[in-house]
């Protein structure tokens, strides 16, 4: 099958090389700067200002990592390579570890900030939400029929593509990403009619992360859907899987990020450690269960006044609905201490 390398890397050579090398420092610096802007925007800004800055960082990150720079932001597999290469090839080990450490450090501080503010795949998935929103406006039965038809169509398409690009040898090793993509669409058959079971289905992401990490650690070359967007891995498998990821977003809002993204799952777990989280100031009795917050949340992380912190991507959209706001546990501790002193 003929597939060509997309032309989105318009800058042919890296902009700022370290020691004249391909391991350009630019992506690391920019990643840090963009993450800092995101952290500031999420924590300090409010309402539509916050959303504008968020769109800004998403577009900037997409431009920087998809169009201008040639550095795979593989935070997930990178550290495996990084540890392996440390002391053997410090330069490349540094690049791998730096990405991992930057993303993880910000996650420990502010949860899945990366997902909601930077990740080009997350941004693209979010952009697909207009279709799921559109469907929400239909009656339940028609919405379901339309969803099933669309899902069946996409599943056939993706499975056919995965089969078409299957290489003659090493199918499993090379097609990991495509298999994950097909897996996502199969999973959606279960997710579509059972919105109530969403919280349980979301746990699949841990299985995905463990599988993914396991494969990386034993040395199978696993690719991610975002390899196509950010890295220079133009393998067919990743191309098929990015199609699957984006089309999955047409069925259930941010389906990949919700159920399967291994990086999302990893940072989701780390997010539990972060002091800055979305909280609701209403007591459960005050909540009228109007469903407004649930409707705006792209990750379906809200259940009345409860927040699923492993899913929340810090987009801040729910802060426009009753009672939800970002709260800093450390600052609260301090202010409580101050109150105690006086």
């Amino acid at each position, binding site marked *: 099958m003929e597939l060509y390398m997309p032309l989105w890397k318009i800058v042919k050579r890296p902009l700022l090389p370290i020691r004249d*090398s391909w391991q350009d420092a630019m992506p690391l610096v920019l990643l840090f700067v963009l993450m800092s802007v995101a952290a500031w925007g999420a924590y300090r800004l409010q309402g539509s200002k916050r959303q504008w800055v968020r769109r800004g960082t998403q577009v900037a990150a997409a431009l920087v990592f998809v169009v201008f720079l040639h550095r795979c932001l593989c935070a997930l597999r990178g550290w495996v390579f990084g540890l392996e290469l440390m002391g053997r090839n410090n330069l490349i080990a540094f690049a791998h570890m730096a990405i991992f450490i930057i993303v993880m450090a910000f996650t420990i501080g502010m949860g899945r900030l990366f997902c909601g503010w930077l990740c080009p795949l997350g941004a693209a998935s979010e952009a697909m939400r207009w279709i799921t929103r559109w469907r929400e*406006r239909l009656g339940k039965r028609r919405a379901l029929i339309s969803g099933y*038809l669309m899902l069946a169509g996409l599943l056939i398409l993706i499975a056919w593509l995965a089969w078409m690009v299957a*290489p003659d040898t090493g199918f499993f090793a090379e097609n990991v990403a495509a298999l994950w993509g097909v897996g996502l669409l199969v999973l959606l058959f279960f997710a579509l009619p059972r919105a109530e079971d969403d919280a349980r289905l979301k746990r699949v992401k841990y299985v995905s992360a463990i599988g993914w990490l396991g494969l990386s650690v034993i040395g199978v070359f696993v690719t991610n859907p975002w390899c196509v967007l950010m890295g220079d891995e133009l393998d067919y498998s990743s191309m098929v899987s990015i199609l699957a990821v984006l089309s999955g977003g047409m069925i259930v809002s941010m389906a990949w990020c919700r159920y399967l993204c291994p990086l999302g799952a990893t940072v989701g777990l780390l997010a539990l450690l972060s002091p800055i989280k979305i909280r609701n100031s209403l007591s459960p009795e005050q909540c009228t269960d109007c469903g407004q917050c649930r409707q705006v949340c792209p990750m379906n992380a809200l259940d009345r006044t409860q927040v699923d912190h492993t899913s929340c991507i810090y987009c801040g959209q729910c802060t426009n609905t009753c009672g939800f706001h970002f709260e800093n546990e450390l600052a609260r501790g301090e202010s409580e201490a101050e109150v105690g002193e006086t």
Partner: protein
Amino acid sequence: MRRLTPILALSILCSATALAQRADWPTFHYDNARRGNSPAAFETCAFEEAWRFNLGEHTWRYSKGTSVWSASPVIADVDGRTMLFIGAYNHNLYGLDAATGEELWRLTTGGRLNAPPAFGVADGRPMVFIGSGDRSMYAADAATGQKLWQHETMPWSYTVGLSAPTAPLVTQLNGRTVVVVGFWNSDRRSLRTVQRSDIIVFDAKTGDLIWRRKVADTPITTPALLDVDGMPQIIVGAEDGRVFGLDLRSGDEQWSFTSGHAVTAAPMAATLGEQPAVFVGDRWGMVTCVSARSGAPIWEAKTGHEVKSTPALTHVDGRPKIYVGSSDRYLYCIDAKTSRTLWRYQTGKFVVSSPLVVDVAGKPAVIFSSLDNRLYVRDALSGQKIWDFETGDMLWPYETRGASLWSSPAVADVNGDPLLFFGSYDGNLYAFKAVPKCYAEETGADTQDGSRRSALLLYGPPALSLGLLLASFLILLGRREETRPED
């Protein structure tokens, strides 16, 4: 004891041009410029297995960097007998009879032999040189396999890693035969880690060090040799993205070019017209032609994915053309003057080996292997099929991209008839000879990959899926119920 025939004695003094006429394969990619273009000629366009030499039973584990055979075998005449030299991951350098595949000797080193050896004659003695994973350079007598000298490039410690040597090149310097080799060594000792690549020049006969220079922190590629305005230059690429030229006499850097990405395949060097040039591919799939005078890029051509293949150069119809494989599954034929892609041929998997060009049935043909377990012979003008050979599967269950080294085919005259050699990852070293019938006559039309799949499977699923998608959108577009049912 003198083992020299008069012909060998002459060949010591041979110039590069005279070397180009020999139909042996004394070093990686045929000659020191790594052009992969042998004057050997197959008379017909069908091949048959002449012999195979198996090493498969020794493969008992996979580890990163495993290559069942070295990147390429080396073939040369020794005392009137054509011999093939090949190193293997099991630490052995083998000397085989190229006509029969019979093992004549083996030399066991202390580490894996991933890089190809090189053949040379020093002071009348035919010798084989190889760098081993045990950080040492070895020289062996080509006729007997007896170790003549060994040079350790970095002392042993508990924390040293496996080193990555390059294929050597054998040449003349100030009337002496010298061996040029690159070694990447690493030591993980805490706080004072060592990661360095050196270019080292040895006296071929004695193993004495002539000069040694640190050139990079990352692994480097096999060096190529080119005469640039009277100065012999060693041209090397490095994983840090640099390609550079060193004066063979002093080791001084003459120029350097920074590619955006890691360079892992050996550069090929040639003088086209007046322009000494280097052709090199990088991890981003860019094939760049660089001036060997200044390091300035002359042209670039983009392939779809990582290039781990050393280009082969030939003149077809009076125009210089290069052939290079890419991990986008294609073999490319590129005009070496204009960078235009003239044709490309799709295989089932990555083309990570270095192609070679020889005459097959009076026409130039390109021979290359792909990770889809096949060895391809294609018309160099059009890319049309001449012959295919299917090898077995890889001996290890999976591969980590970029971690394994892959072998490239070689061609040499053995007792007057050309043979095609290929060390495959299925554990076999194959030798093929031409037989008097043509593939096309035998099987008729060329069946390309893809056409095997029936039209129903090709168009059915996408048509069905489009239909379903259309239906789902039609439902979406239908009458809206503005109120949510829950309300």
